């Protein structure tokens, strides 16, 4: 390890080796160690994922009414009026209560377990022709609008970093973690 680092010969790498050597000695002593430390600013810049806890949700808020306007402008062409889909369109709404029937309809409101996923996905990937072009406020708003269509949130709802993770999706308890299920020997 030390021979490899010496042969690299740069002052920066040498300094890094000194700084982390006590920690590396316990765990990763065999690694080449060619990464550089990530700064908190760098991490904040790229860390866009939102888990169900809502940790990492950004500031800002959005209302159902504001979301309806965003939807009409940016979403309706691919998802139809009120997210109802249609010929060649991707349906987002309806189907609540259908999952255990002979005609299950999987939509955001009938199937997705967490509202945080809706926010995360819209913010990272939508609209398809200009992903990541919506403001945080617009993403909160359009999330609220989509959820309101099936009454998952009320018409006067405002979503933000506090209220979004508290939304109880209709299919919140409908998923079985099959990886853990198989892992503990009870398939």
């Amino acid at each position: 390890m030390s021979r490899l680092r010496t042969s690299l010969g740069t002052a920066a790498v040498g300094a890094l080796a000194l700084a982390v050597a006590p920690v590396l000695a316990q765990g990763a002593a065999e690694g080449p160690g060619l990464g550089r430390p990530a700064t908190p600013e760098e991490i904040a810049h790229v860390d866009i994922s939102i888990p169900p806890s809502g940790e990492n949700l950004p500031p800002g808020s959005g209302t159902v009414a504001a979301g309806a306007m965003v939807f009409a402008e940016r979403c309706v062409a691919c998802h139809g009026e009120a997210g109802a889909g249609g010929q060649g369109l991707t349906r987002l709404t309806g189907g609540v209560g259908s999952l255990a029937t002979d005609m299950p309809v999987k939509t955001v409101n009938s199937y997705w377990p967490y509202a945080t996923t809706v926010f995360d996905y819209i913010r990272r990937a939508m609209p398809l022709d200009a992903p990541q072009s919506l403001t945080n406020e617009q993403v909160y708003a359009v999330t609220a609008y989509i959820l309101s269509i099936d009454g998952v949130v009320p018409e006067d709802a405002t979503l933000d970093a506090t209220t979004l993770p508290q939304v109880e999706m209709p299919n919140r308890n409908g998923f079985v973690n099959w990886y853990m299920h198989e892992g503990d020997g009870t398939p």
Partner: protein
Amino acid sequence: MARRGEEGLLRQALGEPVAGNGLLHRRAFLRGGIAFTGGMAALAAGGGGAVAAAVGQSDPIGLDSPPTMTTPGRSFTPYGVPAAAESDVVRTFNVNPIAPGTGTSRTPLHLLNGTITPNGLHFERHHNGVPDIDPATHELIIHGLVDRPLVFTVDALMRYPMESHIRFIECAGNSGAAAGTMPPQNTVQGIHGLLSCAEWTGIPLNVLLDEAGVQAGASWILAEGADAAGMSRSIPLDKAMGDTILALYQNGERIRPEQGYPMRLVVPGFQGNINVKWLRRIKVTDGPTHTRDETSRYSELMPDGTARQFWLEFGPKSVIVQPSFGVNLTGPGYYEISGLAWSGAGRIARVEVSADGGMSWTDAALSEPVQSKALTRFRLPWRWDGQPVVLMSRAVDEKGQVQPTHEAWKAQFAPGQAFMYNGIQNWAIDANGEVSNV
């Protein structure tokens, strides 16, 4: 003078069926020479042709040669391409006019042999197109529940010790058409073509995670791509620390743009898009992030209305590709039945083939080497008598899991479900040798 065992093999080689409708022993005709060599020597001996009649005025031998032997061939090319006559061996795809980069292209499995997919034919599934990434500026960040958040340039990663493994990658939506109520009349490419196999070379992900120092309490990672879908999937930490690699090379050359250039994850045996392409970020977490592509998509609804989530590992699966839909027989006689088998759980242990709709089965030969979580080629000699038959194949993996029938697979799920389908594929062959899906 043949020993007793050899006599048995000889009988098999001469064509005594070992299962219904003409299936022969898997070792018939292998290494052999037993049935086939006799005539070859005679052919060779008779090939001498006419001896020149007159001394001193012989014809140049080029008069009897094909033009390729009498004209210098063409010069070199920087990057080779297949023969012009093979121009139909291509990926197929339908372009969505609203989102031209979103969708799939399919590997022409029925036109290939062996187990390795050429890089230009590897299937694609893009959720918003192929990004054009500059390797000089692309970086991988590892953060979250780690002692030392780290950033790696591509140049730095290229200096790490690497491993090579042959692994299949399959889209979780592959064969979805076969999960319907009517068998699709389509080629193996059209039904099962979201499946490819390559030698992937890269860095064991545990090396990089160890350098970052995974903290107690961590149980999953989130992997994220730098594409316009921001593709993100949660991966169990034990898998990320296990046989997962950060791949930089595909079949010897740097990964193709459509396969994740400059780097992708290869998560052996798991759902295709968990092998995140254009990888830019790994966040070590205390649970799954529940992204869109592990909740809304790639989960499977069961009859009681609950859904299997994180059903990540493919079960055992096989498909006969020769013959198959569009690969018809040209008349009674000898054929090699050939196909592909694979399992997300490890190696293929055996593949059985039936030519009578499942009444009788015999083991196919597995082409060596049989590798874990890789495509395995199976082969079986067959003498077709010209009567209608139904061909089937059934894979068993090293954990003893058996490929289910279509009906058994369907019974596990709610109507209309189609992810992770691995039911047995049946091909009917009529008296004209034409193949249909039944």
